[in-house]
């Protein structure tokens, strides 16, 4: 891969863009966590909501890793529980005039308290800075439309320009079909910015979380220099039901899970949430200043 120097212009322009991007500190409103109980979706045992947040949203009984949104990820991963968000102004439209899409977006925003299926910004882990992109499955199934693509593209180009790693947490059911062909094209766009990031010599670190399927899996999610996954995360292109429809039989247990994908060669390491901060900090260190100094 040798795109030459043409990408410099891209980076310079993004750098200019950064100046007016209206960054804002983003952190979770902790008041939502009241001490009520629910049953763990994996083991069924009673779990206290408040305890769960403290325990990184991992079931204290069985170790089940709950699906978490960008805000919860920020709270549990980042130094100070916050990031400096950018691209917040980038907001969805209805590009193919799909019936009720605008209304559906508004409802999702109201219901989830987040504005799109991805949140991007700069943050720190154990003092090390990186650009982050955090997907939220609960926002329309983490589907990738134009906003997800644009925010991802900007996050990668920002990392390239500012010489820092880009760390992406994926969680997606696939393309935002209501945006038609535009949603498909986000695969090409985000994969291209991954190439530009590589050209700039900065690492793309991907953390696959449950679930990561469809167009996201067939683009940036599989383009990490380092690819980590949370335990038991479902990772695939075609979803299990689609495959079962093709082969007309049930899938074997564990198929497409993180551990399976590691055996099949697509995941570097399965990392429990409790070890994520330490592992990511080491990886940022390793890739700092272009590598080795004795």
């Amino acid at each position, binding site marked *: 891969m040798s795109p030459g120097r043409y990408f410099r212009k891209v980076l310079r322009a993004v750098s200019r863009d950064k100046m007016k991007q209206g960054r804002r500190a983003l952190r979770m409103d902790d008041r939502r966590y009241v001490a009520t109980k629910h049953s763990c979706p994996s083991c069924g045992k009673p779990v206290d909501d408040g305890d769960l947040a403290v325990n990184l949203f991992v079931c204290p009984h069985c170790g089940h890793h709950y699906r978490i949104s960008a805000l919860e990820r920020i709270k549990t991963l980042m130094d100070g529980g916050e990031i400096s968000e950018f691209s917040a102004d980038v907001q969805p439209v209805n*590009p193919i005039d799909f019936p009720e899409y605008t209304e559906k977006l508004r409802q999702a925003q109201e219901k989830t308290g987040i504005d799109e299926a991805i949140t991007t910004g700069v943050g720190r882990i154990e003092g090390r800075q990186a650009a982050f992109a955090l997907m939220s499955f609960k926002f329309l199934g983490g589907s990738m439309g134009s906003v997800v693509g644009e925010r991802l*593209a900007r996050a990668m180009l920002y990392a390239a320009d500012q010489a820092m790693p880009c760390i992406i947490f994926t969680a997606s059911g696939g*393309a935002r079909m209501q945006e038609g062909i*535009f949603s498909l094209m986000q695969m090409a766009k985000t994969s291209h910015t991954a190439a530009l990031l590589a050209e700039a010599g900065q690492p793309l670190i991907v953390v696959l979380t449950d679930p990561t399927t469809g167009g996201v899996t067939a683009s940036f999610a599989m383009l990490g220099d380092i690819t980590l996954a949370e335990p038991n995360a479902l990772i695939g292109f075609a979803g299990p039901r689609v*495959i079962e429809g093709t082969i007309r039989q049930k899938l074997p247990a564990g198929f497409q899970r993180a551990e399976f994908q590691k055996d099949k060669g697509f995941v570097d390491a399965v990392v429990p949430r409790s070890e994520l901060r330490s592992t990511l900090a080491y990886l940022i260190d390793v890739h700092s200043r272009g590598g080795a100094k004795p």
Partner: protein
Amino acid sequence: MKAEELRSKLQELQELALRENIDIGADINRLADKLAGGDETAWRRVELARHQDRPTALQYIDLMSDRYLELHGDRTFGDDPALVGGIATIGGVHFTFLGHQKGHNMKENLHRNYGMAHPEGYRKALRLARQAERFRRPILTIIDTSGAFPGLASEERGIGEAIARNLREFSVLRTPIICVVVGEGGSGGALGIGVGDRVYMLENSVYSVISPEGFASILLRDAKKAQQAAGLMKMTAPDLKGFGIIDDIIPEPVGGAQSDHQQIAGRVRQTVLAAYQELARKRPDQLLRDRSARLLSLGRFTEKPVGRQSSLLSRLFGGGS
């Protein structure tokens, strides 16, 4: 009823034109579109795009080229008959060609897996594309698939990774890439050889994020509403031209590409060679910058404070889409 009658008249007209060798195909098709209206037009095109007598990738290559040699294998796991590639000399220019390969009958389709490729198909494509870059051959891709194969082996060997890697690598290959959607442009499987400097669609081809059937079953919660879905999805060549996703539409002969292989292959050849002449004039850095701009401009959204649609592209290269 009235539409039905008009259509049968049109059919007669088409057959007459065909017999008399008068090229009024594009006009007739446009007329038919107008008569049919949204959903119906789209669905008619889906059916034409899937017509089993349409020329396949290797037929296009055979009809377009002075000589060609098919090359096989991904050098890792296997050779995928659903995605073919090789070297073809077209109008004196040596191209590396890649294409989804369907069959014309059940036997061929079983061999070709109905043009639904496995990871090794995309990896063969990448191998040949890199070879093209190394030897400065332009690349011609012929897109015709309902999608990558959604099966067990395909997933096990990383169909997602294979497509993703192609998207990244094709986006920065230092050689001209010309893509032509000749039938179905289905989802990531189509895009896996669909990143290029010029993208054309045949008049009756379609290009979409998912099949109309899939779309209907997920968003309309009824797989039988595929016809309606085809309209909602805006997946025809004129739709995509309107969105600025493709560069141009290649008109088909009367009745569709299947009715005159020679003629449609000639038009594709002409379009591809003209595009190549244009692209060959660019220095590699310019070629890549333009391709980059094209890719970065994909998507529609708003930036609230400014209150207008915008994209990275407009700020980067001063253009806009």
